[in-house]
């Protein structure tokens, strides 16, 4: 049976991890390569790098991070943050990334999703949506860019459907209202998108406990759960999340194998 995925997300700035992880025996808590490796060893089903420096000039640093990570980390790697051209997309894949997530650049260049999925296949194109509540829009949520700072007046549900039509193979859905609160994922938003698109939806933003991950799968239909800080600070481990999921009847990958 297909496992529900638990994805660890690393925020990377100029080649360094922003939030340190308290792994035992970790010599350099700011090294994303070493952290990704640790995560893969303790059972993360996927690693997601978010490049928050995200300028085209600094992209090279990220190519190196991916390339080094891919040498010793044999789980799927997703990279996102400011990728806005096919050349960088290709270079990330060549460095060892399996998927690239596209966020703001899809808003400013609506053809980018189509162009990249035509070129590299929809399996490696992830549409990242940063959603914020806006009651004036039909679905109640608005697409934002630049980490939630810029509003677009685009309806999230419409945007998600269009993205899938254009070839996105997966949606990484972040609730900007829940992000950082540790009060749980936005179930209403996640359910709305998961119910209405044909591709897997990864829930993101707000995870504070293993129970939150169970809820977003059982109540909102998420195909995967992503979290950053609850893993980083060692509050909850990947295995405690998986134990809780299993206890609630959600199939997960056994990390022991």
């Amino acid at each position, binding site marked *: *049976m*297909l*496992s*529900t*995925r638990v994805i660890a997300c690393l925020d990377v700035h100029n080649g360094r991890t922003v939030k340190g992880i308290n792994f035992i025996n970790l010599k350099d808590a700011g090294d994303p390569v070493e952290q990704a490796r640790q995560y*893969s060893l303790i059972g993360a*089903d996927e690693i997601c790098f978010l490049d928050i420096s995200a300028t085209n000039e600094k992209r090279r640093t990220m190519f190196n991070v991916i*390339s080094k990570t*891919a*040498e*010793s980390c*044999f*789980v*799927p790697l997703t990279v996102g943050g400011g990728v806005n051209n096919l050349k960088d997309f290709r270079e990330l*894949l*060549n*460095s*060892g990334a*399996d998927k690239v997530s596209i966020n703001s650049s899809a808003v400013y260049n609506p053809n980018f999703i189509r162009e990249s999925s035509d070129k*590299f*296949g*929809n*399996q*490696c194109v992830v549409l990242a949506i940063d959603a914020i509540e806006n009651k004036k829009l039909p679905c109640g949520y608005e697409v934002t860019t630049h980490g939630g700072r810029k509003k677009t007046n685009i309806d999230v549900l419409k945007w998600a459907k269009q993205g899938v039509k254009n070839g996105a*193979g*997966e949606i990484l859905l972040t609730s900007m209202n829940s992000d950082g609160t540790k009060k749980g994922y936005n179930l209403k938003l996640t359910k709305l998108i*998961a*119910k209405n698109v*044909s*591709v*897997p*939806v990864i829930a993101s933003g707000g995870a504070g406990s293993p129970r939150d991950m169970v809820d977003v*799968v*059982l109540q909102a*239909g998420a*195909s*995967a759960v992503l979290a950053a800080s609850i893993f980083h600070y060692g509050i909850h481990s990947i295995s405690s999340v998986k134990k809780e999921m299993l206890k609630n*009847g*959600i*199939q997960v*990958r*056994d990390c022991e*194998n």
Partner: protein
Amino acid sequence: MNLVIIDYGSGNLRSVENAFKNTVAVNNLNFKIIVTNNLSIISKADHLILPGVGSFPDCKKGLLKIIGLLDLLTNQVLNKRKKFLGICVGMQLMVDYSLEKKRTSGFGWLDGCFKKLKKNGLDYLGRSYKIPHIGWNNLQIEDRNHPIFDNINEKEQYYFVHSYALESKSTNEILANTIYNQRIPAIIGKDNYIGVQFHPEKSGNSGQKFIYNWLKWKP
């Protein structure tokens, strides 16, 4: 032993190379791994790996762009009986044809065709079946005696990402299945050639075990 990963402009060559190099290093095996599209190097290889991501027609097109590669591959695998592994679209290319986008012929080494995954119905948690089939899934081993399954149990999971599945009448060519709304052939093969729908290079320790078994396999 020379092991060639065929570079035909498609795929996560780097990841495949990394994963095989790691298995070789960790187990102290004697393999030289080369990534190339050079026909004379390919013809001298002992073992061949054909990766592939993206769409079936694009991969086929990429392969045909390298003049002589398809004939060479067929000769190396079917006549010279060199050990072969096709990964994901590399596996899909081994059969008669695929219906992805348009009907495109494969190598015809194995029976069957690729059709879009079925999306009707709900999973055990009431979620609709999403396409692509992305994530870690188990194998139902059909040919337990095959050396490719040494030390591999059905609890282990492998990383899949695909939207098309093989339909084949030759059940003896299906070595393992996986289940996602339907029975999906996960490992197919005959004689000296094997194809896998999942990505062993991205399947953690279970993937490393599979790669080790394939490297040690003497068809």
